[in-house]
């Protein structure tokens, strides 16, 4: 198991390097210009000056190398400095966003809390809702509950969030006035009242997001449960005289969770990646919004860094899912 993990970790390095190169090249090759949003009243010479100030004049490979060094060498040092008060990164040039002229990482770190709050909660809520639905749907296959569950989850799957989001805003914010339509990222939870406020502003985005995730997860859970319900060991368990609840919730569930847990693990990078559309609709201004904003403004360092962080997370969670699989399923042991 350990060798497997280490091996995969080591193999991940060239994969990641390759991915970073691909990302870098792709983005570099894309036309578009960070100066596009500069008003037309600014004369071209000035724009040219500004472009040079961003370091755009250098050749590609030098910028790639610089970026790699900044990303893999300097940023980790900054992190260490941040936690241990050391001074390794003093004076080093960090990855600087063209838009804000500040280190990309600082902004990313700033965005993580609200992303986790909203997208993470949505994920948790979705899991909490989806699993019981999936279990019960499978246990009572083709019952009205199952049919309804299937229908609702497919509707949930088919409604784009930019539509459902606006719909709930119009209903709950505009018509009923229950919840704010705009997420306040500066809100601090200090006491019960402020917690209620936080809850209120989270409800709509969380629900819109959770609807989608629930839809998919419950389908997964159902399929996995169905697979296991027909297994021989279930009959053995029943023959032992164990109660039906125990049979389903202990024997079947434990086995069914194995594939579902890996699916859940593989979905976690998406939490960090944010939910671009939902964030946009509710103005949550998390990582997703950061990415789309950076793309629109052609803020290459930001886009590169974000996409690469995302790639790292995907590779990492792929690995975690594999390891988890081995841990959960005693039959699978990597060596």
């Amino acid at each position, binding site marked *: 198991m350990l060798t497997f993990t280490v091996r995969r970790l080591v193999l991940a390095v060239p994969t990641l390097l390759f991915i970073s190169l691909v990302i870098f090249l792709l983005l570099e090759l894309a036309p578009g210009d960070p100066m596009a949003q500069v008003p037309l009243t600014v004369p071209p010479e000035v724009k040219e000056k500004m472009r040079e100030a961003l370091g755009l004049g250098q050749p590609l490979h030098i910028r790639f190398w610089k970026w790699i060094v900044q990303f893999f060498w300097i940023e980790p040092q900054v992190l260490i400095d941040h936690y241990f008060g050391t001074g390794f990164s003093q004076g080093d040039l960090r990855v600087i966003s063209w838009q804000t002229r500040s280190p990309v990482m600082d902004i990313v770190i700033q965005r993580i809390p609200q992303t986790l709050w909203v997208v993470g909660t949505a994920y948790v809520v979705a899991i909490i809702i989806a699993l019981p639905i999936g279990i019960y749907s499978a246990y009572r296959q083709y019952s009205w509950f199952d049919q309804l569950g299937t229908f609702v989850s497919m509707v949930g799957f088919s409604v784009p969030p930019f539509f459902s989001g606006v719909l709930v805003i119009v209903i709950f914010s505009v018509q009923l006035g229950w919840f704010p339509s705009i997420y306040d990222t500066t809100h601090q939870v200090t006491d019960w009242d402020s917690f209620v406020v936080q809850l209120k502003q989270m409800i709509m985005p969380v629900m819109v997001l959770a609807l989608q995730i629930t839809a998919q997860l419950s389908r997964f859970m159902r399929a996995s449960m169905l697979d296991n319900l027909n297994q021989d060991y279930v009959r*053995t368990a029943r*023959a*032992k*005289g*164990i109660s*039906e609840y125990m049979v389903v919730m202990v024997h079947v569930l434990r*086995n069914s969770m194995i594939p579902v847990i890996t699916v859940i693990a593989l979905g976690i990078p998406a939490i960090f990646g944010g939910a671009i559309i939902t964030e946009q609709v509710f103005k949550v201004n998390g990582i997703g919004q950061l990415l789309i904003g950076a793309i629109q403004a052609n803020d290459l360092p930001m886009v590169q860094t974000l996409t690469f962080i995302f790639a790292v997370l995907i590779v990492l969670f792929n690995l975690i899912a594999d390891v988890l699989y081995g841990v959960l399923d*005693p039959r699978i042991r990597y060596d």
Partner: protein
Amino acid sequence: MLDQSIAQIRELRVEFQTKDGPVVGVEDVSFEICPGETVCIVGESGSGKSVSSLSLMRLVEFGGGEIVNGRLLFDRRDGGETDLAKADQDLMRHIRGNEIGMIFQEPMTALNPVFTVGRQLTEGLRVHKGMSRRQAEDRALDLLRQVRIPEPERRLKQYPHELSGGMRQRVVIAMAMACEPRLLIADEPTTALDVTIQAEILALMDRLKRETGTAVMFITHDMAVVAQMADRVVVMFRGNKVEEGTVEEIFENPQHDYTRSLLAAVPKLGEMRGKANPEPMKLMGVEGQNLQPIPGTDDEILKVRNLTTRFAVKGGFFRRTVAWVHAVEDISFSLNRGQTLSLVGESGCGKSTAGRSILRLVEPMSGQIELDGVDVMALDNPALRKARLDMQMIFQDPFASLNPQMQLLDQVAEPMRNYGIATGSELHDRVATLFDRVHLPRSFMRRYPHEMSGGQRQRIAIARALALNPKLIIADEAVSALDVSVQAQVLNLMMELQADLQLSFLFISHDMAVVERVSHHVGVMYLGRIVELGPRSRVFENPQHPYTQALMKAVPIADPHKRKSERDLNFKPIPSPIHLRGYRAAPSEYREVEPGHLILTTDSGY
């Protein structure tokens, strides 16, 4: 006798709701089981054996079945008699595992793969006996000792996949016995196991029954097992009971036609004693059988020398080969035209690998294979493809070896298409002839595999193997998955083809009785090596190698007077065939005890 019976099944009728309307699983079955008695239910596949037993446990409901008629009277431990057919599931839950224990057919899947053996063993105890965890574990340990599992303490913490099939089945038995049920239902508990393990498990059950006085309802389709175990026998046929009686009655004086044909189809070890050549079995209700012995020729068609096949085990950081599975280790034999050489041995001893190596479906590491003068090992890919025209294979599982998505016509025609032997109407004609050859109606050509019975499917596989007019057919457990009656038909068909076409068979099986019936020569394999090789009559009548002798002893005989006891049996588990890189396997050396009868003298690991 009636009033002391522990369970009575009266006019049981079970139906399943399917999309094609109700299917009757059991039509009308009545019998009873008395305390301390073993009742064997026999019958071919699909005759309703499992459904009856599951009904008694009221587990059919979970499979979509419904008890539409009949009573299931069960004598509760506290003396009251209850009709289980009407009991609610709460009561059933109390009875299941506690008063009726059940053992299932497939030890591989009957255990939950993600829980430890200990956990699964103690579960029932804690539910029914209200034991604490500690108490339950102690009892579990006890149980494991009772079923004679080596190192019981360690087993408790292991997962099912870490145990061998025999050990798993012992765990299942221990589980069923945990609460000392009054009735034990065993649904084909040994079908999936090797003879040696089967013998042990049977003996174990017999002992447990005697020690605890439990009544046993034993389900099987193997008459030899019945002869070993039963006090009384119930014969079932298509959902009905056709005959009931004591073992002796059934074996010595069967009344019903079906019972008789069933018995006739069972090859009995020792039947061929004194005969040099194999001959087809005499079957009930078949007219005009040609029962002539098949002599074959002395003309050598396949010569295998020092064949070795190993599989690499990759591991470590760089995924290099760290060890080898020595699946086939230095075996040599030859096979004559029109004759059958059988390879027997326990599961995992390398029989299949040997067969596949000859066809080069797996690449052998070294050795020589010579088929009718052609050096198979030296062939390149196109030439090898050509060479396979002369040698074909039939696989164990008739369902798995046919493509579920193709019509039978196409499946049989495929080899001829591949080699461009025939096209168009000629192809069609040839396929039709092949169908005739294997006694299948031509109207089946447009069917799909799932529309056929197991025996019919195996005939298709044979027809496909015959399509290319091969000289050699490797039959890898070709009849193991079939019901006895069907098995007999298929065996006869194979022998008929051999007589007619001068086919040579390399027959791979673990069933000694079948091997005795069909072979001219026999090779006994153990741990990748042939430990004993010789003419069938010599090997069976005069086994010299200790392993062969033990194997012979383990084979159940379809005769209630020749029962075996646990004491006779003493098998060591097969050692692992995996050796680290750098291990050098010693060459096999043989001693000729009689003309053509060889015995391995070097270490075989047994």
